[in-house]
């Protein structure tokens, strides 16, 4: 695997470290191009976690990658921002894009109909057929840029440029759980019923967050995701098979 070194990270950037109170340290990477910054934040999270596993850090409570920075939440009774900065600075100089094994997930999606109420309008706006949209949406391999908003919600980047559209002018008060939606260069799947302003094109038959599972979250940062179309019969079958444990999502590394 190519090991890209984030050499463009400036040595003396005065906004490298920002404060989130006396309990959060932001490692800011916005001197990099946006997509590189996202990768750099994830890569730094990976390095810090590895160091934590070796007990090289104490007092870190959580590490939260953002699109252009990494938030390190710490316990001020155990460590300080100054101590953390001292350990993190040398990590930045050696940062590569290695985030460990990347998983590839094949995600079934039932496009259109009642599951994709925005598909026809989207087709009109974009001047292409609904089938074209579905074909383009499944053609690209997406990458989970960050997680956030709700448990298990992944912001997946890499949507075909022909499908780029801003969010809906008026957000919906309620989007059904497991709806697949697009806006700009991204796809999201809503893990729960929630308000939402993205264009809804389909629905998946499996849960993104399942509290009864040992590992409740299906998707994670850096995962590669490819959608494949299923019809309503397959949707119903997979949904019931998933519930009884007879259907497993395809994950390869």
């Amino acid at each position, binding site marked *: 695997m190519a090991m890209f070194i984030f050499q463009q990270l400036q040595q003396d950037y005065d906004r490298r470290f920002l404060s989130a*109170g006396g309990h959060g340290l932001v490692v800011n990477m916005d001197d990099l191009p946006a997509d590189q910054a996202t990768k750099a934040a994830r890569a730094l999270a990976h390095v810090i976690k590895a160091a934590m596993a070796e007990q090289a850090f104490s007092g870190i409570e959580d590490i939260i990658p953002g699109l*252009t920075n990494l938030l390190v939440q710490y316990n001020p009774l155990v460590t300080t921002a100054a101590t953390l900065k001292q350990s993190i600075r040398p990590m930045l100089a050696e940062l590569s894009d290695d985030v460990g094994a990347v998983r590839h997930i094949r995600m079934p999606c039932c496009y259109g109909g009642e599951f994709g109420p925005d598909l026809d309008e989207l087709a009109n706006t974009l001047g292409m057929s609904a089938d074209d949209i579905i074909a383009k949406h499944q053609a690209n391999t997406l990458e989970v840029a960050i997680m956030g908003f709700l448990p298990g919600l992944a912001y997946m980047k890499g949507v075909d440029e022909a499908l780029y559209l801003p969010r809906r002018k008026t957000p919906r008060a309620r989007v059904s759980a497991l709806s697949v939606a697009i806006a700009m260069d991204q796809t999201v799947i809503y893990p729960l019923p929630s308000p939402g302003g993205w264009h809804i094109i389909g629905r998946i038959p499996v849960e993104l967050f399942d509290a009864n599972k040992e590992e409740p979250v299906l998707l994670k940062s850096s995962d590669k995701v490819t959608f494949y179309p299923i019809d309503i019969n397959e949707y119903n079958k997979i949904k019931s098979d998933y519930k009884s444990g007879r259907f497993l999502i395809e994950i390869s590394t």
Partner: protein
Amino acid sequence: MTTSFITFRRAGPYSTVQDMGRTGHQSVGVPESGALNRFALKLGNRLVGNPDHAAGIEICMGGVTVSINTTRRVALTGTVDSTLLITDAYGHQMEIKANRSVTVRAGLSIMINALSDTNTAYLAVSGGIGTPLLYQSRSTSPNAMIGGWQGRCIADGDQLPLLDDQSADTSENMSEWMIENPDMFAPKDMFRVVLGPQDNRFTEQAITTFLSSEYTVSPLLNRMGMRLDGDLLTHIDNADIASDGIVTGSIQVPGDGMPIILLADHQTTGGYTKIATVIQPDIPALSSRKPGQAVRFTAVSVDEAETLSRQAEDQFQAMLKQMVAPPPVIDIASLYQLGDTTGD
């Protein structure tokens, strides 16, 4: 063995099961959650003989009536002035002060009226609430629909399981405790903040306004955030940022210029500028503020914030060391049992 449970005759508007939260999973979108006032829940747990991480009931605004089907110690914390009203089947009532534990016989009614000096208080029960663990925590995050009792706020009629009270098996005289000086829970209106991480996106005037004017807690208040009303804070260009992580206490200012302080159930990432962060030891007192009450801010450095965290913890530990046995309360249950022997 009988199952112990706590029954909510009146659940109140926004009661939830909370403990110290499920820290460490925000990178997959799982909110930290946990008690808004960690000091208060920890104190409650100590008073009833529980470990610090035991789950209790977070009460918002009050109006809660419960009963427990086994004899347990309970304590109300997070308030100085509010009390527990304990009533037996005959209507005999006694009032128990906050910040002390009391042994309550099985089946008696335990009532918490409208909270007087805080928006948030805690009912700790010996043994602790026994709802399922998710990521090692029983905390409820109602917006994410996870944890606690069915992932939601407690409703009238709900019966929540209790864990066994190890100390109660043999002893009729379970130890009770009180603290003499609950000053730590007295109301405050000045909160210390560290500016940033996006203070550079606001005009100088906005920073001055933020640190000098008085804001009012809006009625739009829940475990996710506290919206404030007051002077507008002006952005240099706009309120949007590339989405990033959030800590509890972050003060987000969206395009309308009105600050929102993000609390324990905040979304794990957000796309709005954050002008400052309330320091961790001030969050308990902040979450005690009620709609309509004043909130003001003063800036401290990161070093000062970290030192203040350690000082607050020392103060809390010192308070715990001053736990003493409370004066006895008249046990109405045994009183009426005594009366019963005369026949009627």
